[in-house]
């Protein structure tokens, strides 16, 4: 099929190593009807299905004369739909959106205090990685429209992210999108807010005005679509200025946590990012302090050596010791290590159990002071123990009936 280089557009990916995606070349013509060529790796099984879907979409967008070449490497139908819609929009401005049904299992919401140990970054324009992301049970899944998408692909990525939010089962993970830097990122919101996103990551955040703009646009879209559920914000602090403004940012409406982005931060400082992280020690402490002062969660940067599980573990333990509540990950293999090491360890749980029971005992007896043996326990220590127990329960490190079990052991 021959295309006019000036009039035709291309979207998607093809070639060696590309899976679950398709590449579409499209050109509007004035006559000749619909010429649709399909070259698919799954031709025998889904060739007819692909052709039917393409025709349905062309009907929807009222396109009668067109040349389309689809080079398919096993794209699921929501991926094909995203690619074709992006191509159509490039040549035919329209306000109509081609929306596939929203999966009912994706219509859940998250709370401000939700556990956020791990959040898995997925490049917004690489469909193969999103399909199975949820089965690895990260606390959150981030569809990234920012750094992981090349500038020339930002347009098509929005359609894919939108369709992913609707059609891919997130298996209970918090549904997150990293938008582009404000103000450009505000336009991303149209593609994600109506599709039940739980949390937005706002990159390169340096002032509260950026967040005010995001909140304002989110509220406008929600009002239009009748959506009343909260959309939480996780600003990412990635510069010296951002670090200095961390506390103000942490106090903004809908902000549930701050994340730190150390690649950009160290670049801003003009220093090298090291394994030990001394260069970012101040920034990390500052961020943790700002978050705790504002009563929100502090989230650490990603650990980029995906093959090094020992290094990741050390990193997590250091991060936890500084007061962070979670960190990003860029490979599903990192999730387990992050969960296991952010979760309270055996000693912490054992200690917390004793304090918790002593606290319960004191409360029942109406005592003002909690004591363990001859030692008095301060209220903040009690609070920490209660938090530890809650986390241990949430992460399955402690059975629900642990109190009964302890009593039986004693007996």
């Amino acid at each position, binding site marked *: 099929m021959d295309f006019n280089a000036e009039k035709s557009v291309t979207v998607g990916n093809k070639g060696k190593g590309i*899976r*679950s995606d398709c590449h579409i070349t499209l050109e509007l013509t004035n006559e000749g009807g619909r010429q649709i060529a399909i070259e698919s*790796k*799954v*031709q*025998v*099984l*889904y*060739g*007819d*299905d692909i052709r039917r879907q393409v025709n349905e979409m062309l009907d929807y967008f009222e396109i009668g004369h067109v040349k389309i070449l689809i080079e398919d*490497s*096993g*794209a*699921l*139908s929501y991926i094909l739909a995203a690619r074709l819609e992006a191509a159509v929009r490039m040549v035919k401005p329209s306000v109509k959106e081609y929306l596939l049904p929203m999966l009912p299992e994706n219509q859940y919401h998250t709370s401000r205090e939700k556990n956020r140990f791990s959040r898995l970054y997925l490049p917004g324009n690489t469909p193969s990685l999103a*399909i*199975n992301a949820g*089965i*690895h049970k990260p606390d959150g899944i981030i569809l990234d429209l920012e750094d992981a998408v090349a500038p020339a692909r930002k347009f098509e990525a929005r359609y894919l992210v939108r369709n992913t939010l609707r059609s891919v089962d997130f298996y209970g993970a918090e549904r997150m999108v990293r938008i582009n830097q404000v103000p450009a990122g505000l336009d991303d919101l149209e593609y994600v807010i109506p599709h039940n996103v739980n949390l937005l990551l706002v990159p390169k955040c340096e002032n509260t005005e950026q967040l005010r703009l995001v909140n304002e646009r989110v509220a406008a879209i929600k009002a239009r679509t009748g959506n009343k559920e909260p959309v939480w914000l996780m600003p990412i602090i990635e510069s010296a200025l951002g670090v200095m403004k961390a506390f103000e940012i942490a106090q903004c409406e809908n902000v549930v946590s701050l994340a730190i982005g150390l690649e950009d931060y160290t670049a801003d400082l003009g220093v090298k990012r090291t394994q030990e992280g001394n260069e970012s020690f101040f920034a990390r402490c500052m961020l943790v302090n700002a978050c705790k002062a504002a009563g929100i969660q502090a989230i650490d940067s990603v650990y980029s050596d995906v*093959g090094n599980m020992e290094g990741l573990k050390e990193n997590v333990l250091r991060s936890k010791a500084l007061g962070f509540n979670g960190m990003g990950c860029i*490979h*599903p*293999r990192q999730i387990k290590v992050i969960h296991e090491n952010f979760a309270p360890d055996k000693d912490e749980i054992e200690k917390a159990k004793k304090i918790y029971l002593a606290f319960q005992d004191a409360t029942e007896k109406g005592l003002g002071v909690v004591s363990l043996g001859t030692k008095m326990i301060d209220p903040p220590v009690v609070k920490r123990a209660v938090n530890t127990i809650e986390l241990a329960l949430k992460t399955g490190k402690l059975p629900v009936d642990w109190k009964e079990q302890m009593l039986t052991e004693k007996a």
Partner: protein
Amino acid sequence: MKKCDNFVINAAGRKVPTLVNGQEVVAFKGLRQHRPAGRKYASPIPTCIDYPDDGNKIVPSLAEALKKCGLKDGMTISTHHHLRDGDLVSNMIFDIAHDMGVRDLVWLPSASFPCNDPLIKYLEDGTINRIEGSMNGPLGKFTTLGGMKGCAVLRSHGGRVQAIQDGEVHIDIAVIAAPTADAFGNANALNGKSACGILGYALADYMYADKVIIVTDNLIPFPCMPMQVQGNYVDYVVQVDQIGIPEKIVSGTTEVTKSPDRLLLAEWTARFCDEAGLLHDGCSIQSGAGGTSLSVGIYFEEMLKARGQKARFAFGGSTKYLVRMLENGVLDYILDAQAFDLEAVRSARENPNHIDLSVLQAYNYHSKGNYTSMTDIMILGATEIDTNFNGNVVTHSDGLLLHGIGGWQNCLHARNVIIPIPLFRDRIPVLVDNVTTLCGPGELIDVIVTERGIAINPKRTDLIEKMKGSSLPIKTIQELKEEAEKICGKPARPRFTDEPVAVIKWVDGTVIDTVWKLEK
């Protein structure tokens, strides 16, 4: 002569021929139903009169050796596959046959590899009539599109030696590529630049063939020890520069999967075995060299070690991970028919508990017992599994023949057969209503582990009972199939003609299914 004729519906409900390439065959009768009759096949009685007293059987070239063996139209030539994708010898045979103008040969490899794709031209020009063995990649596609003159016959490794032993296949000439040999024909695979460790697939060939040729690139003075091939069976020895490309023979090192999805399958598989009580002191296991299987093995090692237990034997192919288990005392024996990496080759050479085993001993169903049925845990793969737990390993859902059976059918006889597979590959569901080609009856497949849930065969009420209350996601196979179709959409079926291109043999030599030519 028609490729196939006299079709019947066999006990598995599949339409199969009872006349294949002019030879009568038996349709599958159901599990444990077919009893062979008669005596084993034997090669003609040789005499020392015809062989040199000094034991020197060397002839200057493979061409001359083939001529001396009387190579002519219609003969069956067997080879073994332990040089894997690095094999240079199989193609040499047919280059020579082609130059001699010989036609209608039958090639009986124990497996074929992409390196054998050049043989397509000899299938096209009639030098080779058909392959009885496995057809991978382009050879498989060529076959499924009806390119082969005869009907291909696919057998398991055990089925191949059963067919040779029972005389269903008569080998005129066995050509055995040997990494080390002496002039008498004793040979092994432990030493030499093309060392591949074990020659577990060659035993039946040289015992039952009329003529046997050893081809080696490492000729040493008599005696070649240990003798994995006994020279008393050998007619001629040929020395060549190179029998294989070393880096394609064994991988320098096999690696566990880095795919997070496959790692999850491996972890769940190991946890399943553990929770169901299958992994215990003295247990026996087999898992292959695929990335997922290797990872399962590593989990097994950790679990056994943590409990101070060990496995009695591991079976099938060996890798550096099995070798590590053996050397760390978590495993007593490796019973080995093929070495997958250099560490495994080293161990086979050095460790007396790493035992060289032939498939004739281990897999042959027409034998007085079978190692596979004594194995506790068997980890296998599949291209498709249907809702009755039937399995396919040779064709893909689009109907193309792309893999051999390997030892898969034989291994189904283990006590617990567990298949970790993704629910779908790209867009193609692995769980289907009906397998495209039936290779193994569902009665023998116990557990399917996918990334979205684990299905236990309903007949395994013991396993279902044991897994009650498990935190693993146990689902029915129907639920899993529906989940796959919800994600991928319901696939269309490939359109076949009524022309058979290959038959699939069961372990007892009966025909379990037919592969049909695809519509263009």
